Each structure stands twice: as structure tokens, then as C-alpha cells.
């Protein structure tokens, strides 16, 4: 469904992502994990049209995404839940959700949107409860639900989540991840970018590990979960062991 080949992204003249390739198939839940600064969000920026300065190929359903604007990519069927949630705080919860379906009001009509609205509300009962409240007054976890709900309102073929666990308490994180898992089971294709490797890999089909802009590992989630190299990608080569060796 989504194919990325030899992607290279730059900020100014610094390459943050080099020669990254990955693919997502219909119905899969894929995680990209890595420590912060590894270039995960940058990679997503390129996919979703936020970042212009990249080279390589990104194909979605056989169509090249190069040069498309973010709204155009949304119309292609990729919805993103941005890092840090980025909800529209002065708007009500309901309105936030409607904004997610902005492009569809003309295309699909009010009824279809209303149906989806019901669907999302059912999925996140808390949002239904709070539908008239201003989004800015929600708690972090609720905001994250709202951000996911908003992205779903565009009826995406591929849902992209950028660090949904960031800044949330462990319990809430657990809940978010189980929601993501439910979504995946209901047939949505998901690309999940996470720092929280264990939680992400637990629910994923496959995973990619990114370290300082490069893809260092890939494989099935179960393999990665037990791979020591994952730990190394996060905490560096084992300096302690190195010292021990030398001291012997």
C-alpha cells in the first residue's frame, strides 16, 4: 500500500534521514521505533506532505506522492495524528471531529459524515460525553483520543500515528495502545511511530528500528522485542560491558 524507497530528508543542509526504505501492506499495523532524534517524525513529515525537502520515492496505492500538498494527500487517503495531538483547542470536541471530515462534506454529504461521527463516538464514548466541551479543556489522554478520532473522520485508508504515547501517563498509554489495536483489528491499516518500543511492538505485526536517520533493523514484532540490538539503538553500545572487558 505504502512504499518508501531510498528516502532522504533534509533540514537546511543537514540530512536527518538517509536512505530509508520501508513498506506497509493492506491491513497491517507497522511500527517504526527509535530513540528521539532518530528521524521518525521527519520521515512522517515527508509522507504526509509537511516536509518538502526530500528525495527518493514515496508511493501510496501505486501513486507517487512527490509534490502533493498535505490536503491532497489527505484526499488520497492518508490521515495523520500529529505528534503532540495538535487539536483545535478553541473549538468543541464535536467541531474538531467535523474538521477532520472537512474535505468530505462536499464529496460524501452530511449523512455519511454523520454516520462516521456516530462510529467514532461509539469507539470513543468519552468523546460523546464531552462532545460540546471545548477541546482545550480535555485531559491529555482524551485529547489524544480526539486527535485519533479526528483523523479517522477523513475515512483514511492508512492511519499514521506520530508518538501517540508522548507525555501521557502509563495507564493512559496502555489504553491508547489497546485502542490502536482495536482499530487495526477492525481493518484499518496503521503506521505507528513510537519511541515506546515495547508497547508499540507488542501490538504490531512488523517493526522497523530507526537510529540516527538510518534503518538499522527490521523484522517481525516478536523478533524485535527480544533483540538486544534494539536496546542498543536506544542506549548506545554497551559502554559498561566495554569497561568491564577492559578492566579484566
Amino acid at each position, binding site marked *: 500500500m505504502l512504499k518508501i524507497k531510498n528516502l532522504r530528508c533534509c*533540514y*537546511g*543542509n*543537514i*540530512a*536527518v534521514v538517509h536512505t530509508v526504505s520501508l513498506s506497509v501492506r493492506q491491513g497491517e499495523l507497522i511500527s517504526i521505533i527509535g*530513540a*528521539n*532524534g*532518530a528521524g521518525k517524525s521527519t520521515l512522517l513529515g515527508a509522507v504526509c506532505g509537511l516536509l518538502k525537502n526530500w528525495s527518493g520515492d514515496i508511493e501510496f496505492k501505486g501513486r507517487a506522492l512527490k509534490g502533493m500538498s498535505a490536503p491532497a494527500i489527505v484526499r488520497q487517503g492518508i490521515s495523520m495524528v500529529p505528534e503532540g495531538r495538535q487539536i483545535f483547542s478553541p473549538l468543541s470536541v464535536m467541531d474538531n471531529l467535523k474538521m477532520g471530515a472537512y474535505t468530505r462534506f462536499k464529496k460524501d454529504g452530511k449523512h455519511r459524515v454523520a454516520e462516521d461521527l456516530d462510529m467514532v463516538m461509539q469507539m470513543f464514548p468519552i468523546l460523546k460525553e464531552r462532545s460540546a466541551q471545548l477541546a482545550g479543556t480535555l485531559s491529555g489522554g482524551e485529547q489524544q483520543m480526539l486527535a485519533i478520532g479526528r483523523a479517522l473522520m477523513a475515512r483514511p485508508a492508512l492511519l499514521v500515528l506520530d*508518538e501517540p*504515547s*508522548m*507525555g501521557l501517563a*502509563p495507564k493512559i*498509554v*496502555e489504553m491508547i*495502545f489497546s485502542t490502536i489495536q482495536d482499530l487495526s483489528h477492525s481493518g484499518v491499516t496503521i503506521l505507528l511511530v*513510537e*519511541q*515506546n*518500543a*515495547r*508497547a*508499540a511492538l*507488542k501490538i504490531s505485526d512488523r517493526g522497523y528500528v530507526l537510529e*540516527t*536517520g538510518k534503518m538499522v533493523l527490521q523484522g517481525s514484532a516478536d523478533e524485535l522485542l527480544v533483540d538486544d540490538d*534494539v*536496546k542498543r539503538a*536506544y*542506549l*548506545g*553500545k*554497551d*559502554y*559498561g560491558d566495554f*569497561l568491564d572487558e577492559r578492566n579484566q
Partner: protein
Amino acid sequence: MTQSEPTPGIPAKQILDVQNLTKMFGGVKAQDQISFSIEKGIVCGLIGPNGAGKTTLFNMITGIYQPDAGKVAFNGKDIRKTPAHRLVKAGIARTFQHVELFSSMTLLENILVGMHVRTQAGFWAAVTRIPAMKREERQSRRRAEELLEFTGLCADAHKMAGDLPAGRQKTAQIARALASEPLLLLLDEPAAGLNPVETHALGKLIQKIKQSGITMMLVEHDMSLVMEMSDKVVVLDQGKKLAEGTPRQIQRNEAVMSAYLGNG
């Protein structure tokens, strides 16, 4: 250099002492009761997952934010209310994660700007070009050239800073920070965007700076570099201090591991 004598009671060997530092942003605690200290001459690594509050901490130490509670002492002197530009004069210098060289100036001029707090010439001196100003200018130039040599950037002295390759810009930033003759140098992700060769060279440079007696604080995602360079590592997570210790202790700390890898 304008340094006040260390206050009695605080061990002089600690160059930076942070006590119960708290910072709120719109009711949310971005920093919660953080305490640690840095001894003179060491390299202290500061790590933590995204949103852990490393940048906020940096900004408080360098005077860009004022803490809501707690205290920061530099060389035994409370610096909570000191404006950013004074702190540089007192001896705290920093580099930025994204390269922030002055792109319309040459590399040499960038270094000269870095000396701003150590030079005097003002408006009238500039306009009249009095001998003292010319002398100062000559001395500054000489020192700038020495610094460029120290950092291995001599060849690029007269190139526009914006035209340099990324790696050089990173190094140049460090050179510019050194130009202010700091006692404490804060490096914000110096290795981000560098290739392995450049990262290696950066490590060498950090060691060289350490040998010259400058204390350093290092925020970095390249853990190999942090672990290799640091004498001590402080780990932040969600605005709190999670752990503090030698690199080895940190790498084996279960709390750190679950902060990074998740505990799921």
C-alpha cells in the same frame, strides 16, 4: 573576567548546582523538583526521551526562562534572575541543536561575534576608530584564528558561515561558543545530523575541550557518544529526574530502560 568569589558553604568544586528546580507552563509542570550538580572539569551527559524537559532545563540554566521555584547556582552564585546575556559574561555558553550560525557573516566574523562579551569597543570607538579599538580588534582576530585552529576550521575562516557543510557548521558553533571563554559549555545535540566520521571527530574535540579545563554539559541522542564522553549522566523523564550516575550505572538502570523502551 567577572566572577564573584564562591559563597562559603557551597563546595567550590561544583560549578553548577541545581536544586528543586520547577517550571510550569500553563499549569503543567514542565520541570518538577529537579536537583543535580556538576563538578568542575567534568562532562555531564543529560539524556531523556522526547518531552523529558531537557531543553527547558537548558533554557533555565542559560537564563531564557526563569524557574518558578528552586534555585540554580553557578560557581556558587544564584543566577535565577540573571538575564541571558549576563550569564554568557559570567561564563556559561551554549550551542544549539539546529545550527544557528549567523549565515550572512563569514566564519571568522561569527567567532568574533562570539567574543562580544569579552570585548569592549562601543559606538564611539567604532565610529572614531581610536587606537584602543584597533588594538582590541587585532587581538580579537588573533584569538579567533587560534580558536579556528583549535577546532580545525582554519581553511574556512573567510567563507560565509551559511555556505559551510553541515558538519563544519556544527563545529563552528562550538568554536563560537568557546570564543566567549566559558567555564561551562552546554552542548545541545552536537552530533545530530553528523555522519560517523564527523561524530568521531566531534568526540575528539569534546575531549580536547575537556582537557583545556572547561566543564561541559551534553544533551545528545547518540547514546554511544554520550556514554563514551560523559563522566556522569543525568536522566530526565517527563519533567522529573529519573536517574543520575556513571554511564555504566545508567545503562543498567531498569527505570531508564523502561522510560526508553517502554514497560509494556
